[in-house]
């Protein structure tokens, strides 16, 4: 039978099955709950389309295998791959910009003949590993010089992805890097100064770096009712879906906004609206509890990791997961502009599920590959 991991106090005991498989049972359970929710929501949002559910099932299987495989790799090994991984990632991004496949008005995919590969996804893993590797080579908290170098390392892939343009992914990649620096202990003064710099950078971003469609998205976000049938349609319909769900929701498969096609992108980026409509605020609170548990568990594992690299890496991956969550729900509920960020592990499709599960695989690896000679 499976003996569950009871936390750090029992790490001296003989290895349990979960330890030998490099799996964290509480985290795995929470992830499985999310996946279950995902199936329920995708089935409803796709209009009871079993083909879509099956495709999602395939992705889930692939993602779990990826998680399981990466969990077998010791964090130290991962660290050794940091520099080559990062260099390869940057090269792929440059290649994407030069020869990439254009889809949905952006150049995001690299056609490798057999399959199309969204190169920015790799960066979501490669970047935090690289920054964590770089910053923890030195004693923490990091010096100003190292923080600046760290930021430069973050900036290169972020700008390359933003250029594609893919605002959602570049935000996620950048936040992964910044979280590493934050968790490594960069001083509050730098954080403050950074805040000021970003405020100064915003106009530059707006006028020189953002694409017309991105600017329109932001404007629509600020005033969705100005264009109710055009760009604002999505936000308005999504808010109607959420709001009409009320406290207890309309019931599974009974959401009129989703079942009757009023909600665009409803089984991908806007699946949260479908969920809210059918399960109400009560269901949403349940969903958020699962998410909060995962984040808590991730940070707990991070805090109990054995070395600085593992700590900041696990912490940064966990917090990036939160950014996914926050940006997605924020945009679906009309708090944030619409950027293409899925609801982590619930939205249908995308390479994001594999990347996310790889991240959790790393966290599990950090938790289960331990030295007992402390």
């Amino acid at each position, binding site marked *: 039978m499976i003996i569950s991991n009871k936390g750090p106090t029992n790490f001296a005991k003989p290895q349990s099955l979960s330890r030998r498989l490099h799996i964290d049972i509480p985290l795995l359970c929470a992830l499985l709950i999310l996946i279950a929710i995902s199936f329920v929501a995708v089935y409803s949002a796709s209009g009871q389309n079993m083909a879509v559910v099956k495709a999602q099932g395939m992705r889930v299987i692939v993602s779990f295998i990826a998680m399981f495989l990466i969990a077998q790799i010791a964090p130290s090994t991962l660290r050794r791959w940091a520099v080559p991984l990062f260099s390869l990632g940057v090269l792929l991004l440059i290649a994407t910009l030069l020869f990439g496949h254009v889809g949905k008005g952006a150049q995001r995919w690299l056609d490798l003949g057999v399959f199309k590969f969204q190169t920015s996804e790799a960066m979501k893993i490669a970047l935090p590993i690289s920054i964590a590797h770089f910053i923890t080579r030195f004693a923490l908290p990091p010096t100003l010089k190292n923080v600046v170098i760290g930021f430069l390392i973050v900036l290169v892939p972020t700008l390359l992805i933003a250029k594609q343009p893919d605002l959602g992914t570049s935000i996620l990649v950048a936040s992964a890097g910044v979280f590493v620096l934050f968790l490594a202990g960069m001083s509050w003064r730098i954080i403050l100064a950074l805040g000021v710099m970003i405020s100064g950078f915003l106009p530059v971003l707006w006028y020189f770096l953002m694409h017309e469609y991105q600017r329109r998205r932001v404007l629509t976000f600020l005033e969705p009712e100005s264009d109710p049938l055009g760009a604002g349609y999505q936000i308005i319909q999504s808010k109607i879906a959420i709001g009409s769900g009320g406290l207890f929701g309309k019931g599974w498969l009974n959401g009129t906004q989703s079942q009757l096609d009023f909600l665009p992108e409803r089984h991908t980026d806007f699946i949260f609206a479908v969920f809210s409509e059918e399960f109400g605020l009560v269901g949403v609170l349940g969903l958020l509890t699962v*998410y909060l548990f995962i984040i808590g568990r991730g940070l707990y594992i991070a805090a109990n990791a054995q070395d600085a690299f593992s700590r900041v890496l696990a912490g940064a991956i966990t917090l990036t997961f939160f950014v996914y969550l926050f940006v997605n729900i924020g945009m679906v509920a009309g708090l944030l502009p619409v950027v293409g960020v899925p609801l982590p592990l619930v939205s249908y499709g995308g390479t994001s599920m594999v990347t996310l599960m790889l991240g959790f695989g790393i966290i599990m690896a950090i938790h289960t590959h331990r030295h007992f000679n402390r």
Partner: protein
Amino acid sequence: MFSKQRTAIRNNSAESNLFSRRALIAFVGVCVLILTLIVNLYHIQVNSFQSYQTRADGNRIKIIPIAPNRGVIFDRNGVILAENKPIHSLELVSEKIKDLQVTVDKISRLIELTTDEKERFFKSVKAQRRFKSIALKTRLSTEEVAIISVNLHHLPGVAIEARLKRFYPYGASLTHVLGYVGRINAREQKKISDDHRKAIYIATRDIGKIGIEKYYEQLLHGNPGYQEVEVNSRGRIFRVLKRVLPEHGQDLYLNIDIRIQQVAYDQLAGRRGSVVALDPNNGAVLAMVSSPSYDPNLFVHGISTKAYKKLLSEDKPLINRSTRGAYPPASTIKQIMALAALEEKIITEHTSINDPGYYKLPNVKRKFRDYASRSHGKVDIYKALMKSCDTYFYDVAHRLGINKISEFMFRFGFGEYTGIDIHEEKKAVMPSRDWKRARYNQPWHVGDTINVGIGQGYWTATPLQLAKSVAIIANNGKIFTPQILGASQGEKGLLQIPADDNMPIVLSNKHHWRIVQQGMWQVVNQRGGTAYNVFKGAHYQSAGKTGTAQVIGMAEDVKYDASKINERHRDNAMYVGYAPFDNPEIAIAVAIENAGGGGSNAAPIARAVLDVYLAKKIGNKLGSTFATNSQQGSRAQ
């Protein structure tokens, strides 16, 4: 594994504590942000729940109005004059059909499809909203409906839709009474929204254009129903949530008696003219025929330009001659002129003049010829009416003067709208000094008065005005507004709608009515009367007055010879009358353009109508039909 680390000595526990602090801060931050999301979601899902629920329902629920059925129109005996008939059309929903071309080919093997119809169909397929049916062929014949119905099972997405369209079984004979309905045009649409009736007309395609259909549009139309349906974002209907049936329009029972309407129409036989019959006791319009006419059913489906151009011919079939044809009344007003003279004490029952065959004003050279051009000898009021002696009335008119004539004639409704319940009506002209001044900026001449004395000159009247004036005489001065509508049947049951009665004409001496009625009786019943030959042998006693109206002025010494002049310049034949003589039930006016003498041309039509109306008229007055029926029913039990 930490071989690359440059700083050999690191305080791991300090770093661990630093991390824990940072992780805690991050976790608190995460909690705060999640709380923000929850607060926002609470605001949306709980505080604003009502408003978003309303908007969600607004998205999914669509109201589809259902047009009410237009009220059916009956004649006084319950014969259907206007009904709603289903018109079948073949409709396709392109989303339900795999290959439109194959389906259309299949259909064209079953029934005939013109290339025009196919082209129009494929054009509208592109323009149509999704999941809406598109007509491939409209107005299917019964046979075509049968053929398609049998084959529907292997034509998925094809359906036969039935729509109600107005149908007028009596066609042209009633057009000018009933009018017709047609597709609502932009002007009417604007009027509907100006009148705040848009909601009522939301599902309606047709509206009354003229006649009864227009005048009683509000009664006939009814109120729409609706169904509440659930639709998706592309408008496809998933289910019906609620259905409220429409309230059909009221059925109208007209005062028209279709039998005499038909007789009159047949008698006119396409000649230009009109017949109007009224019930003098209540103003009911029993018949109102204008000829030539046209088929109102043409307009229901939208008339072709070619067919419409045909209606713009010289005979003017579009004009309702009964209410808009302004004819010189000629001798048909002599009885009223006589009445005016009696009232003004210019003549008495016994006054007689010597008729030399012409009339000469004192000190004026011009002679006013009598139509007979020969002497009638000694003429009193009876003979003057019976023989229609012009000379007698020249003198009477001259002595009355135009002021008194016009004043008196106004009371009989000349030069005024009769107030009939259709919108198409003309006032025609009852001349007066003021009128001539205003119209021609000329003073009134004595000669004008003389012409007016025999219903000529500037004087014109519509057949309806003439019928009304006769009805007043038949009824000893009681005046009713002519009314086509008799009763309406709606939610509240049958409702009789009586005509307005106006202030009656009260004479200084009631016997004067009898004098002119007697004069009119002699016209019909006394040998030598101008209509004596026509009414000989009738099973009832009637009274009447013939009239022969000159259309063009004639020089005083030229003799009228019908064969020698242009057809359009020949005399108009006129006749007015009523029957039975003692208890009048019908008053009639006949006018036929360029037909010649009124006695020989107009009077026979009046006779034919009276024969039919009085022969079969056994207590079937409107309403009494229903009353007697129910009484009989209860007695039978």
